[in-house]
């Protein structure tokens, strides 16, 4: 391992510009003559638009144009799409209601887009929006997914009973049979709380139109600019792809929320052509709460069947998933194929059956959020397993160990084939670091101080590195999830990597350069990572689902293989040897068994000078591209253990120790991996203890600022004890699995298992706020008193 190669904890190259304010984000981009867009949003959760009077707004100073859904319809701008087709049990396709970029005749959630004002200044656009008079006919609203079917609110004509689909997975008969012969059945009702994504950088867009070329450019906060261009071109119809450039410069976090194609970005680029001026919009924080796709929001009943010895026989789950008022870009896949196939967890479960009813409600659209479906599945599995152990008087760690998958490959009953892992190794290591054996002493000591101490295990697995194109295609995905890479070696031996992955905080400029440094022996400072521009990178699928390493870097490996093969031919000519006799190591090409060698930059130069070989037989230049399509998902897995204390007097929960043992396969940069784990745990703890997006019954979002939506803070989190185990992933050349979502997946059940252990009962839901914990602790104290 070199100091900048694979496995080195290299400091992030990009951080210098980020921490010195030199990053270039979408809001930093200003085009000459640009106008500003302000969106008038619905204050009602559900209403008909009887009339919109724009006359006063149009007379306001600085106003360039005001558009409504009528203008979108007149220009035949297509509706926003959902790119993953899910079929119901009866074979019928999901019921997708129309999703115009500006509302047409009806608004369906608070924050829905009623009109856009475009003015010279943002303040003028906002003032003019005040003058728009909308005559609403208020309709009944529904926000609770469990009550959506049969509600008075009828959200889309296309979806009777507000149902998007009634989907299922697994073998119902086999699962029912497993339950019929069970010695013990554990039953659990739970809610996976709705979350706001809260990227540090809010969404933004600048649409630009070049009359000379009839070309459109969209600068936007995207995790996947090529997918944005594809959707805006092929489905929404704004311009053909060759006349349409999408640029996503530095992006400050996304957690999934910047995968999707939203109304605002669509409107900015459409309006830019209409008004013949660049049009800019930057979301304010409240708009982000209202209109960024939310996450989670499941209501689930789940059951686990055990035999008399504690072996798991079967699992069944019924989930109602809230998809909000419209289907967001990948929303349909989250509670189905990203969820139910993970219900086997790390366990050998012979029979699984899951039913998922997805419903519309008068709330913001719900889509992928860090982990996307897998945190929801892990919460179901790890809560069930914990409670099953408690109910049958078994140690939760031993119960898990008894049921672990131990041989690979392991085909689960729900699609996934686990290709490798060592779950016992992670559990053993985690128990040791957490000093699990002595928890009894620590509980007693805490009790002497009047505190309730608890410990909770979460043995998670996730499927990431998404995804094999044919596999996801067979499951309904509209497009394959391969990745592309191009390696351009310049004549002096510096290297440019063009990748379809797009960092929004992951550190690709460092890790991808480490790979190149390792392979070509060049310093990482001589490597540039180019991403986020459809005019530079040919095509790509973007960054989400922990896929940039396993899929994006694998594409780079494939292109580097081609570079090496070509460079060997050039080196062969320079060294007057057969390419087969050339060895490449540490940046040097050597004729086997001799001391004749030439370094990589010299070979690059010779490839371009092209004097030493016949240009008809060997093409000049050194540039190769590749597409990588994975053969399987990757399966990171691990064990997190949370130890916490509850103060029954105040309801305050203090996490005193966190142990994380993760198997991510091989690591490129352990420091960056550790950072990803830190952030993921913080987000998972946020979901468990603090965060919740709350609508009132009539559909008003009352958590629309950081006054009311509590994010985890530094003083809510302990210093983590992080360790790894390592089983290299067999399905990609680097043996890496992906680490971006693990913490957010593992943490919520670890916290709640610890909290319920401390409380001595299961009666607590997420977010376990101090008020909720205080109430639950009152019950605990009453139970203790009754027992005395």
């Amino acid at each position, binding site marked *: 391992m070199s100091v900048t190669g694979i496995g080195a904890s290299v400091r992030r190259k990009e951080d210098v510009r980020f921490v010195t304010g030199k990053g270039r984000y979408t809001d930093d981009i200003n085009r000459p003559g640009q106008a500003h867009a302000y969106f008038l949003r619905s204050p009602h*959760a559900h209403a008909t638009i009887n009339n919109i009077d724009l006359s006063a707004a149009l007379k306001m100073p600085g106003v360039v144009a005001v558009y409504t859904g009528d203008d979108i319809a007149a220009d035949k701008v297509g509706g926003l799409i959902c790119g993953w087709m899910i079929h119901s049990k009866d074979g019928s396709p999901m019921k997708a209601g129309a999703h115009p970029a500006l509302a047409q005749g009806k608004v369906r959630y608070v924050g829905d887009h009623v009109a856009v004002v475009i003015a010279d200044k943002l303040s003028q656009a906002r003032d003019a929006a005040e003058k728009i008079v909308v005559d609403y006919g208020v309709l009944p609203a529904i926000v609770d997914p469990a009550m959506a079917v049969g509600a008075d609110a009828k959200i889309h004509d296309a979806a009777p009973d507000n149902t998007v689909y009634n989907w299922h997975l697994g073998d119902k008969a086999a699962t029912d049979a497993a339950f019929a012969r069970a010695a013990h059945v554990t039953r659990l009702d739970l809610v996976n709380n709705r979350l706001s994504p809260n990227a540090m950088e809010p969404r933004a867009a600048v649409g630009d139109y070049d009359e000379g070329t009839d070309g459109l450019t969209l600068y936007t906060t995207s995790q996947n600019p090529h997918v944005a261009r594809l959707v805006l071109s092929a489905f929404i119809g704004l311009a053909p792809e060759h006349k349409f450039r999408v640029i996503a410069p530095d992006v400050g976090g996304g957690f999934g929320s910047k995968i999707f194609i939203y109304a605002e970005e669509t409107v900015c680029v459409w309006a830019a052509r209409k008004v013949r001026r660049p049009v800019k919009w930057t979301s304010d924080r409240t708009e982000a709460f209202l209109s960024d796709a939310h996450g989670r929001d499941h209501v689930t009943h789940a059951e686990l069947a055990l035999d008399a010895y504690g072996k798991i026989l079967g699992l069944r789950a019924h989930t109602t998933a809230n998809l909000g008022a419209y289907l967001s870009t990948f929303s349909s896949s989250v509670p189905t194929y990203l969820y139910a196939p993970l219900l086997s967890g790390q366990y050998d479960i012979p029979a699984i059956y899951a039913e998922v009813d997805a419903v519309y409600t008068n709330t913001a659209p719900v889509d992928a959020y860090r982990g996307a479906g897998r945190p929801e599945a892990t919460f179901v599995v790890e809560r069930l397993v914990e409670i099953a152990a408690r109910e049958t008087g078994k140690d939760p760690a031993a119960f898990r160990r008894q049921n672990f998958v131990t041989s690979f490959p392991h085909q689960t009953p729900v699609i996934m084939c686990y290709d490798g892992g060592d779950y016992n190794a992670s559990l053993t290591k985690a128990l040791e670091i957490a000093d699990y054996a002595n928890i009894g002493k620590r509980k007693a000591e805490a009790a002497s101080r009047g505190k309730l101490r608890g410990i909770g295990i979460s043995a998670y697995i996730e499927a990431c590195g998404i995804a094999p194109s044919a596999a996801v295609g067979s499951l309904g995905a509209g497009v394959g999830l391969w990745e592309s890479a191009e390696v351009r070696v310049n004549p002096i031996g510096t290297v440019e990597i063009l990748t379809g992955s797009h960092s929004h905080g992951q550190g690709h400029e460092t890790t991808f350069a480490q790979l190149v440094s390792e392979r070509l022996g060049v310093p990482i400072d001589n490597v540039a990572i180019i991403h986020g521009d459809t005019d530079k990178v040919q095509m790509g699928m973007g960054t989400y689902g922990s896929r940039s390493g396993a899929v994006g870097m694998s594409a780079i490996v494939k292109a580097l293989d081609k570079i090496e093969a070509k460079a060997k031919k050039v080196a062969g000519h320079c060294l007057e040897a057969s390419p087969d006799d050339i060895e490449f190591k540490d940046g040097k090409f050597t004729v086997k068994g001799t001391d004749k060698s030439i370094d990589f930059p010299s070979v690059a130069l010779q490839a371009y000078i092209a004097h030493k070989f016949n240009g008809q037989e060997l093409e000049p230049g050194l540039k190769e591209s590749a597409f990588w399509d994975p053969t399987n998902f990757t399966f990171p897995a691990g064990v997190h253990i949370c130890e916490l204390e509850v103060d029954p007097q105040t309801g305050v929960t203090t996490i005193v120790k966190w142990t994380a043992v993760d198997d991510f396969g091989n690591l490129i940069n352990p420091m960056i991996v550790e950072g990803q784990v830190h952030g993921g745990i913080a987000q998972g703890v946020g979901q468990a203890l603090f965060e919740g997006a709350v609508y009132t019954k009539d559909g*008003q979002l009352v958590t629309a600022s950081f006054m009311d939506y509590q994010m985890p803070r530094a003083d809510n989190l302990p210093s983590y004890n992080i360790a790894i185990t390592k089983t290299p992933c067999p399905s990609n050349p680097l043996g890496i699995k992906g680490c971006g979502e693990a913490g957010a997946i593992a943490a919520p059940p670890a916290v709640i298992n610890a909290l319920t252990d401390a409380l001595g009962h299961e009666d607590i839901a997420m977010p376990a706020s101090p008020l909720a914990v205080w109430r639950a602790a009152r019950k605990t104290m009453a139970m203790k008193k009754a027992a005395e």
Partner: protein
Amino acid sequence: MAMTMKGEVALPADRQTVWAKLNDPEVLKACIPGCQSLDKTGENGFSAVVKLKVGPVSATFKGNVELSDFDPPNSYKISGSGEGGIAGFAKGGAVVHLADAEGGGTLLTYDVEANVGGKIAQLGARLIDGVAKKNADTFFANFAENVKAG
């Protein structure tokens, strides 16, 4: 988001006098907190402009005030709704009952239901209950002052 409030206020005038004042647009205009204008549009309807501040959001609401469910001189309902542009909307109503008070005068009781939405609910959620109660109390306190003043 919806909220409800109840209250009562003792007035130093007889029921008939109080009833007359409850139906006098000039009195109502003087009593509705933040009322900029109240113009008669029909027998029992008015168009109104009301300036309201909820936490960080202040807005001018344009809407209607209506009097209904008359049972003179015992009770009626005063209700209103307004759109505050990008600030959202507010609507609400109060059922007002009058009864002879022990020892003279009139006891006015009110039962208020209010509803807000949009930015007011988003940014002012924690403040809404307090603001709504304060506005209702202010209206009836103003009304009591008006009655006292004769």
